[in-house]
């Protein structure tokens, strides 16, 4: 953890298709909880024969990394806003998309942002998606976490060109009782924030290994039919692993390609009722491809394709302190993740 972290009270986050600021291309994101911003500079020292003193201190490309976390609430998803509709059909095509991230800060002395221009806006431009993950925990809110990487970041107060127009869109005409008139405040989320109840287990496609703990079947409570899943958490994540593509005559990279093949993982933590019930033989193949689709009541659909294989099983807990034993089933696939939900994008 950095010694001198700076905390900003951020009142709005927007993600836009790089260089655009109109329509669905620019959107103030709702349900955002927190954002982390890292900027790293790289220096390379050059010395020369004949003197102890430094000959030159060459600056390499600065790395900017933004991580945004939002609750899943039926509102537009961070990942799809960053890559556009293409993220609904192909992660490979989505990996080429670039986005701009705007973090708007307002002055301490204002009581509402209604009609007010932001005091300053941190603009991270030309960002590529570096990783995305979705977490559905048994306690707390379902969250989407998106990390973008890039090489351009600046702070702005003026109104030049595209950035200026984009900043102007932060001037929210809010009549809600929320003081800052933040985009997501005052308005209830479209579907309500997704918590454990909101995970559509019946509508999801879950590998049979996960259902091996005797939690199968349905229970009817009143007029509701609920699945007996025993699942404690589901985490889907994809790490694009970006690499800079450089060329002569240019300081910054002209592209940051995703390091194909990149792994997409899905972890299920399940309360154990027996062992992991997975047999392993040294004489033949033990695994088969499994389809995985996770759905929630906010309309989010995470489709990991049909070629997911069990990569590891971890059995933990069940200690003498009365802790519950859990089994974590980790599945992995490559280059396959489509995300849907939160409406229409550019």
């Amino acid at each position: 953890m950095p010694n001198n972290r700076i905390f900003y009270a951020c009142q709005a986050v927007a993600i836009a298709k790089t260089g655009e600021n109109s329509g669905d291309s620019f959107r103030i994101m709702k349900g955002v909880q927190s954002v982390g911003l890292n900027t790293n500079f790289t220096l390379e020292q050059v010395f020369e024969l004949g003197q102890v003193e430094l000959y030159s201190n060459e600056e390499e490309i600065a790395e900017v990394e933004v991580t945004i976390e939002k609750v899943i609430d039926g509102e537009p998803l961070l990942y799809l806003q960053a890559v556009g509709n293409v993220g609904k059909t192909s992660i490979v095509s989505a990996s080429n998309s670039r986005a701009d991230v705007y973090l708007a800060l307002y002055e301490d002395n204002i009581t509402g942002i209604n009609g007010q221009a932001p005091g300053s806006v941190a603009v991270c431009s030309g960002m590529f998606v570096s990783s995305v993950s979705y977490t559905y925990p048994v306690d707390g809110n379902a969250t989407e976490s998106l990390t973008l990487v890039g090489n351009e970041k600046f702070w702005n107060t003026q109104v030049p060109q595209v950035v200026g127009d984009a900043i102007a869109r932060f001037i929210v005409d809010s009549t809600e009782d929320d003081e800052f008139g933040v985009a997501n405040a005052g308005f209830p989320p479209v579907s309500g924030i997704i918590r454990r109840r909101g995970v559509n287990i019946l509508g999801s496609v879950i590998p049979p290994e996960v259902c091996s703990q005797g939690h199968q079947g349905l229970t009817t409570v009143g007029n509701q039919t609920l699945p007996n899943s025993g699942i404690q958490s589901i985490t889907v994540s994809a790490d694009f692993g970006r690499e800079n593509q450089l060329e002569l005559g240019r300081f910054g990279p002209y592209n940051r390609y995703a390091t194909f093949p990149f792994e997409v993982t899905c972890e299920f933590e399940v309360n154990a009722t027996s062992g992991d019930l997975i047999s392993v033989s040294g004489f033949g193949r033990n695994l088969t491809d499994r389809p995985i689709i996770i759905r929630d009541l906010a309309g989010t659909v995470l489709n990991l394709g049909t070629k997911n294989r069990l990569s590891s099983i971890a059995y933990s807990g069940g200690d003498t302190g009365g802790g519950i034993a859990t089994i974590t089933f980790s599945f992995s696939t490559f280059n396959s993740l489509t995300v849907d939900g939160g409406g229409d994008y550019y």
Partner: protein
Amino acid sequence: MVSENKINSLLYRIIKGRLRLTVGGLCLIIYEPDSDLIEESYSIYDSTYNEHYRNGDWVEDQLKEQLIDQGLWTPLDDKEIERITKEIEDVKVECFQNFFKLKELAGLKRKILNKNDQIGEILSRKHSLDHLSCENAAELARQNWLISKNTFYDNGAPANWTILNFSKIINFYKENIIEHSTVRKIARSNMWRTIWVASKKIELFNRAAIDLTRDQLTLCSYSNMYDAVHESPESPNEKVIEDDDCLDGWFISQRRKHEKDKKMQETEELIKNPKIKNSKEVFIMAKNKQEAESINDLNNELSKALVQQRKQTIQEKGTAKDTDFIDVQTELQMERQQAFINKMKGRK
């Protein structure tokens, strides 16, 4: 400056729970009430309150309306008191931080006195109509009744109010109420500290806790406070402990530090995502001004200064890159130096 002799005299007055009044050859003793008498005094309060209420006197809520109507006080004045109190806290912290700079300290103490006067002026306006309220009349009657019941001649006979001037006795009693600053001095005195330490093994004041007088309770409370200060791992200098304003400043700074640590801990718990938690710059969504303030308060002094510095740079330049910020420039300079040192070390 209260002399040691006066301190000891007041200490024994508190220990015995009585005030001695000697006029000419007459000696009267006013005792502090015990719990039985205090309990009974509230029936006097109730009956007086009802009597005044029946007579059509105002209750406190009606008084507020009168105060506003007559332009004596508004709810904004309470906010003003809050603001000045906060300022006094800040000045006291400054007192603690500048304890060894005698000139500055004297100036700061004058500032505290001025601000206390400001509060006093607002409060006097706020309470200027109190004498018209049922509550005030009832409380006055209760206090007077307690004194009338607890005043005796030195031979133990109850005071004869048919021949004594009651209002003069009341005034004398009020004039001799021990101020908190004096009780704090007593709590620090050697005489009392010796008794206080010994009392951990034997009963203090020879009374049950419920029968302790107001001054005795105040003295015990301050003594506990000084114990806690001495036992604290970050206990301040003895001279700071002896200065009320500076010690208050130490308390305030400790409290603020504790609140900040707590807030920081809450934030750590709030931000579960390790990537965000470990970022150099963390943006937390603020819903309103209060939330924004408490998020900004998470920054330490250095970070706060950096934020201000950065804001200024952005204002000046309109558009700023990270490398325009002074802190980033300093960081880069340090990195260069470190790289140079590493390179040189590597050559040896």
